[in-house]
């Protein structure tokens, strides 16, 4: 397929703007750019076809089953898109006077209220644009809290080795030293190791519950207490909230600060890698440190307010507002009952799939799972040479997006499957059949899988070459 720069003809273009209706003003030559940018020269028809072709080579939730563990690829409701596109939301300038954007401020206020209720928090900021951004923000809140108390010894953040890579990276960015604690066999936090790791230098613990192998850590209250007793705070990575919304709240588990991924749990679309939104909620003890401005309500009027000891901004303006509109639309649609129903069925669907595959595939953790489960392909690899990668490539030929591969790091040859609640039983049964038949193929014709995928536009890319000799842009020469 051609690149957009390889199509078109010199002098071709679209006519978008009218002639200038004011006199020409000139800018000194010395301030002008010397070389014009080389942008495509296409008709609208060319452009339209090009992107239609690209869309044809893209696979979204809208195309088929997408059981990507830890990403919560649930259905993206169309009404969300329509609401975010209303001119009253999309055509308002962020710096309009407050009395002209009361509706927008209401969106932020109402969503904050709903999400605080769901998570058991007291305050929230929508500034962070993504989960990792939220982690960074939440950790800065913890840092500011200790500094404010005059406690400068707390320099360490404890992170289980099962955590998503963003956790330690965010902690490092926030200026902390990361203490990694090994998980138990079942992926849960090892209480003894945790007790040994906490001390006067503990600023906090970062955890997700259910954890990254899909299990709810039964000892959660003990865990958060150990950290609190040592003087630290507890940070909740909300990536896995889809398992427990409406069932249990991080605030009740002993967490002081949380981030949410609106583009996972709250159905806003992933967009091919963004934009998402990673709001950070916190208990009252941290609310004064939140990035400002936040929305306050006084006698029916909304106004912006910057918290007294705010850590400052982590982004311009108020955050990914259009994404918040979509999340609010979703929350209002579901209501209290629907939120609970979503989580319950996310967990049911995952357990159903796991049950129907556990006679063939080795499950990393042999118990009930939450909204996702992890399989280990290590035994199959030892027996047939077929790895998690090979099974994933085999799935591609069946129109199913592979599960998350090689994460969490504590499971070898891992495949993490998260069906979500928006898949029908028929879809699950079809997928189960595909997984089962791939298993058979691994046993009877492993070469077929080593050579997979066979039916995709490109196959088995040279990633080594791409990294050794990076070619990161089209060259016009």
């Amino acid at each position, binding site marked *: 397929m051609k690149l*957009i720069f390889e199509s078109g003809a010199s002098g071709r273009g679209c006519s978008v703007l009218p002639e200038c*209706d004011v006199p020409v003003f000139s800018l000194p030559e010395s301030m002008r750019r010397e070389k014009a940018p080389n942008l495509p020269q296409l008709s609208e028809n060319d452009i339209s076809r090009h992107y239609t072709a690209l869309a044809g080579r893209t696979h979204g939730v809208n195309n088929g089953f997408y059981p990507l563990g830890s990403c919560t690829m649930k259905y993206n409701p169309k009404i969300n898109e329509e609401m975010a596109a209303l001119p009253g939301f999309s055509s308002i300038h962020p710096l309009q006077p407050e009395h002209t954007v009361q509706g927008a401020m209401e*969106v932020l206020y109402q969503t904050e209220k709903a999400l605080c209720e769901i998570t058991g928090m007291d305050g929230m900021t929508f500034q962070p644009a993504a989960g990792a951004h939220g982690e960074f923000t939440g950790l800065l809140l913890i840092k500011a809290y200790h500094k404010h108390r005059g406690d400068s010894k707390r320099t360490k953040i404890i992170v289980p080795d099962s955590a998503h890579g963003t956790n330690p990276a965010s902690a490092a960015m926030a200026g902390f030293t*990361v203490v990694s604690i090994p998980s138990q066999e079942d992926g849960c936090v090892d209480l003894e190791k945790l007790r040994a790791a906490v001390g006067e230098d503990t600023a906090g613990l970062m955890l997700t519950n259910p954890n990254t192998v899909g299990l709810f*850590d039964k000892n959660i209250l003990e865990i958060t207490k150990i950290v609190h007793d040592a003087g630290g705070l507890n940070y909740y990575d909300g990536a896995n909230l889809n398992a427990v919304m409406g069932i249990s709240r991080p605030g009740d588990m002993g967490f002081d600060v949380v981030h949410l991924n609106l583009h996972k749990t709250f159905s806003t679309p992933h967009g091919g890698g963004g934009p998402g939104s990673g709001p950070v909620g916190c208990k009252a003890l941290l609310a004064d440190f939140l990035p400002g401005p936040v929305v306050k309500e006084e006698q029916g009027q909304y106004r912006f307010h910057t918290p007294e000891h705010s850590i400052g901004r982590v982004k*311009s303006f108020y955050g990914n507002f259009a994404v918040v509109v979509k999340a609010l639309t979703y929350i209002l649609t579901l209501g209290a009952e629907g939120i609970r129903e*979503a989580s319950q*069925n996310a967990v*049911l669907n995952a357990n159903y799939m796991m049950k129907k595959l556990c006679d063939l595939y080795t499950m990393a953790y042999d118990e009930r799972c939450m909204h996702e489960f992890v399989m280990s392909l290590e035994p199959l690899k030892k027996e047939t040479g077929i790895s998690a990668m090979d099974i994933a490539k085999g799935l591609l030929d069946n129109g199913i997006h592979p599960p998350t591969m090689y994460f969490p790091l504590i499971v070898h040859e891992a495949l993490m499957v998260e069906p979500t*609640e928006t898949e029908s039983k028929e879809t699950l049964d079809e997928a189960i059949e595909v997984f089962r038949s791939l298993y058979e193929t691994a046993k009877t014709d492993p070469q077929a899988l080593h050579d997979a995928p066979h039916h995709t536009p490109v196959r088995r890319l040279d990633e080594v070459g791409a990294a050794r000799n990076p070619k990161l842009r089209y060259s016009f020469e």
Partner: protein
Amino acid sequence: MGSYVPSTREQRQEMLKAVGVASFEELYADVPESMRLKEGALNLPDGMSEMEIMARMKSMAGKNKVFTSIFRGAGSYNHYIPSIVKRVTAKEEFVTAYTPYQAEISQGVLQSIFEYQTMICELTGMEVSNASVYDGATAAAEAVAMCRDRKRTKALISAAAHPDLIQTVKTYCEGSNTPVEIIPAKDGKTDLDALSAMLDDSVCCVLIQQPNYFGQLENADQAGVIAHEAGAKYIMSCNPISLGMIKTPAESGADIAVGEGQPLGLSLSFGGPYLGFMACTNALVRKIPGRIVGETTDVDGKRAYVLTLQAREQHIRREKASSNICSNQALCALTASVYLAAMGTKGLQQAAEQSFAKAHYFAAEMAKIPGCELRFSGEFFHEFVTSCPDVPKVMAALEAQGILGGLPLGGELSGCVLWCATEQNSKEEIDRAIAVIKEVCGA
């Protein structure tokens, strides 16, 4: 209650049975009683049907005033968005896809990012671009982080950059213990003499915004020379539309170019989602954060695209990664690409020249009104600061006509207004605004 769960009651029973439990309750056996919410415990309103939601959200949207004429910029710009942009970015495949980790079925997203990276390089003149970051302010903060090394850790940021950028950089630098000093402004531009005095061998970078927050065109070349002479890196935060016309960061000697990509086809959207672009020299390619798409071949020799240089990123380096960033703003980057394709070089130049011309026309007409003189003497792109005899009255009068006036400034510039004009402001609109202001000022 609204629901997107397709399984019927019967199917749920079937599945529960297959799993070996009697109820949903049992699935949550590991959740301690004390923290399990009872049904109905969540204090949220009941769900709604689609029709009711539509009405509710429309009512909220209706409480926002959509201005017909906008003369305010300050980081969010009202440019014309060609129709094709919204149609392409609404394609379900692009909207609902995830990050292209499985390259074989994501060539569409990967190629579109590769094209975006190329366009950003063309726009800025730089050699390498990443797949984008959250916004212009965080892009600046990430750029500062790229410049730090063991010996040089201090960042110098121009006071004439956008306040949100300065604040965001400060927050990020507080996290990494990077000292930040603000380079003072003089007559609305970065004071290069002050900059020279502030430079020593502890400084890792100098950041200038072009055009700056006040709309003024900085002496970007000279700032770069001064920075390099002192061994510091030079970061330019730029306006992408202005690059249709003014000297590029590459031509001004920048090591890193960043900026806010919202003007490239993204709606105002009350401040987000926006688009942070980052581009740099080849020498810095392994330090640039975020995703990058590279070209390669597949097993059959076909050209293909893949996420590359991943060993820089958090999922591999974990706490040793230079940035924690995981997602980019993919759909926003796609928006910018479609915009640039639809506008082409000529269209972008037009958008730039017209924004420039309209702003200058507006400023010239305004300068004729007593009390509304230009505050700064230098060249400007499409924003300018004037004094104003009665800011609240002027703003109210404009608002009554459906016109969003410039941004009232505070602090040392209290009583002044930051105005903006783009190619979308017709001469008629500008004349109407001038007439309103004239009337208020009794001229």
